[in-house]
């Protein structure tokens, strides 16, 4: 393992909350507000980790296990995710399946932890999350499948590593664009962003992800927030890996470039959130099916273009 791989991986754990800050600042700028400081997520995390906790009397150990398992799985997922061309700490053939499986485990425990409260709101959030995730999963598989077909590699690091500027310039460029679009839509759904979910809503009935974690407090909630930031980082890193296939050879230049790419993804997410409203829950399946459709189209094209 090269030292720069470790360095970039460490960046993920340090810089992930910054992405949330960038998204919020972008939204503030669009709305003409001052907005919270860029580093607000760090302050929030620090505050939560110093607090005690309040638990609902209905809950059991499953509720307490939810945030722990969620953060643990997403940390392992970070270790599997390549940061651009630099690659991941852990890479093996088929790690993309492990990546999807880990997200599944995280979701499983978030949902059961929410149901443990016996609250109708959290049950509702859990039910919607299960629906959204079930429909997003095939789209994610299709998106990753395209990368497998284009690169001929079965590991995320190998896949991202095999994509170069020439891959974009050849006929496979269109395929890659479709794959990136698919993964971007999956990212919005998996990370509870508009148009699938609104992280800023203040009405329990309209929340999905936020309402599931209503009863968590203190360090538990800190774990959840940090896990959410890491999950956003993981998806952004994948998208940057596809869209920014550049490697200069200079560690600092590469790192800077990747970081700028990540920030741009966060800004794009912020722009999407500012420029459109959340979809009605009834229309969310249509969006996710469309994402799957894009992915299927990309797979078909990739097979033909070869």
């Amino acid at each position, binding site marked *: 393992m090269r030292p720069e791989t470790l360095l970039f991986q460490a960046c993920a754990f340090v810089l992930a909350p910054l992405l949330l800050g960038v998204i919020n600042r972008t939204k503030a700028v669009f709305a003409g507000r001052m907005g919270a400081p860029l580093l607000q997520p760090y302050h929030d995390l620090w505050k939560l980790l110093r607090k005690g906790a309040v638990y*609902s009397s*209905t809950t059991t150990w499953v509720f307490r296990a939810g945030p722990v398992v969620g953060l*643990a799985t997403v940390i392992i997922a970070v270790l599997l995710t390549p940061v651009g061309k630099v690659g991941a700490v852990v890479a093996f053939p088929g790690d993309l399946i492990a990546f999807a499986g880990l997200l599944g485990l995280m979701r499983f425990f978030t949902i059961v932890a929410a149901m443990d409260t*016996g609250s109708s709101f959290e049950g509702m959030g*859990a039910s919607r999350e299960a*629906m959204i995730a079930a*429909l997003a999963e095939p789209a994610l*598989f299709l998106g990753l499948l395209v990368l497998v077909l284009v690169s001929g590699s079965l590991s995320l690091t190998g896949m991202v590593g095999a994509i170069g500027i020439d891959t974009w310039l050849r006929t496979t460029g269109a395929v890659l664009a479709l794959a990136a679009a698919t993964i971007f839509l999956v990212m919005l759904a998996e990370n509870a962003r508009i148009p699938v979910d609104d992280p800023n809503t203040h009405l329990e009935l309209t929340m999905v992800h936020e309402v599931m974690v209503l009863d968590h407090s203190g360090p538990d909630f800190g774990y959840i927030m940090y896990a959410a930031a890491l999950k956003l980082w993981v998806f952004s890193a994948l998208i940057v890996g596809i869209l920014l296939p550049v490697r200069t050879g200079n560690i600092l230049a590469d790192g800077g470039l990747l970081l700028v790419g990540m920030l741009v993804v966060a800004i794009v997410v912020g722009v999407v959130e500012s420029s459109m409203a959340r979809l009605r829950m009834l229309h969310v399946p249509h969006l996710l099916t469309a994402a799957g459709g894009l992915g299927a189209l990309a797979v078909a094209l990739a097979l033909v273009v070869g």
Partner: protein
Amino acid sequence: MSLLLIALGIPVAGGALAVALGRFPRAATAAGVSSAVIGCVLGLVAIGGPLSTGATIALRLPWRVPYGEFSVAVDSLSAVFLLVIFGVSLLAAAYGAQYLLAYRQRKSLGAPWLFFNLLVASMALLVMARNGILFLMAWEVMAIASFFLVTFEHEKADVRNAGWTYLVAAHVGTAFLLVFFAILGLEAGSMDFDRFAALQPLAPALASALFLLAVAGFGAKAGFVPLHVWLPEAHPAAPSHVSALMSGVMLKTGIYGILRALTFLGPPPAWWGLLLICIGLTSGVLGVLFALAQHDLKRLLAYHSVENIGIIALGMGVGVWGMSQGQAVVAVLGFSGAVLHVVNHAVFKALLFLGAGSVLHATGERKMDRLGGLLKKMPVTGGTFLIAAAAISGVPPLNGFVSEFLIIMGALSNTTDGGIATAAPLLAVVGLGLIGGLAVACFTKAFGVVFLGSPRTGRASQAHESPVSMLLPMIILAVLCVVIGVGAPLAAMVVLPAAAQVAGADSQLVMSNVVAVTLVARNIAGVAAGVLVMVALLALGRWLLLAGRKVTTAVTWDCGYERPTPRMQYTSSSFAQPLVDVFSRLLSPRSHIERPTGYFPHSATLHTETPDVFLNKGYRPLFEWINLASISLRWLQHGRVHLYLLYIFVTLVVLLIWQLGLRGGV
């Protein structure tokens, strides 16, 4: 081999003894259970050799049945299935002892144990049989024994109904198998399996016809959609330890049959693989969707078996596809995944049914919407159920993930380059993605509604934990879920010889694949271990953070509402509603709504159900038509025994004349 035959004989003898002791429930239980346990332990010891060395043991005895021969053998493929049969039967029998004793006031317990032990012995004999007649006889004993087990509570009309549905389905399947074996027997001139295998290469059309017969006949037992309709009826009706055995093990005899048939039929064409993949996709997706829409816990589990059989079919499809393209890696990975999923499904589905039985034992309820909050009352049942629920959803670090991983790796290792036509295995990949997401939804619902939140009824709030003899088998199965997940390389080694045998790969190729498969498995084991270590570290971190701080309890947040009631919780129908709505075209759910009316409404009800589309729109009309059509033949059936004897006599004479005529002609 003689040890194995003794292992089969003991449960049967013990079962007979249990019937003789029928008037003394405890003695009958002791006889039935101890003989089953001893038989299974001996069986597990006996297959140790074939499993570890890959050697085949065989025995042939003369038998006076026409075309029959008592020919049995244990090779790698049989050994893996025997491992599942003996292992799960052992635990199910131990669990059933206390479970069935609850019925001792109303029922004789001798016969159920005889049929249970007969079922175990017939399944074991089935996978060892190397003669068509012996195989079919074991197959039939298995069907009959399980029929009597399903109809244990025959005083209930719906149980009798379930029993008849099962009996009909089983025999429709057997009809296909009779034709299958008859054709093979005619071609080979013998009912011996070795002679079947020596037939290759068969004419392509004949091989394909045989393959379709095997898929239909064995598929009816395994529960491929649309032949699955007996499953959601029969499994909930049977006592829970029997459901565990039927769902976890008996369905797999159908899978065994298809795998065994593949070894007779020679190199497959590509469309066989495509057909199996399509069957797998249909069974997998429809199985999990129907499971999601159910409100009865055991019915949900039964539908979910259809899903898992679908996953196994996907693995077999990938394997057959790999064989057809001459890609040994794809074939071996696909079949390894399929066989390992057979083992895994036996472990977690048995555990889930035993857990459901434990809930039923404690509360007398199978309706999920009348349960809730059981984790506090039943910590062991709840904890093991949670592990099984996560395992069946195919997430790391548990066993379900390992087998699905192998199947996907098989599909992705396909390097045939020929455009869209060669993309069939990719269907399996995307299908597994969709199935995985839906399975998470289905099992978070099952676990969440039954074990979490607060009790919805008095029965649920008065639940108690089951006795140790019922909990121990569940704990063992839960440990196995983790062990197979973390010890993936070892599990892969156990199933690999069987997979290689079906794939027909030569030993050189197998050795190179051993390296590939264990490498793959080692990586998953690493991820699994990583997850477990990280969970432990973060739990420790959380404990350190909270130590010495103020930790209080309060009521669940309900928008400031002070008195939340259990009725306000999300129910199984409300949880499933968004997904059921998305797929309502496929599921056609029904809802009965009584809306609130007037200015001061006092009552309103909502009731939803999702009956089986195939049963209601396909089989029921068909069988009603058959019923109507056969009215015209009713004059044959009048209840006069001497005329029935005449029928038999006339038939015999006609057959004799026909036979003599044939001889004369020759």
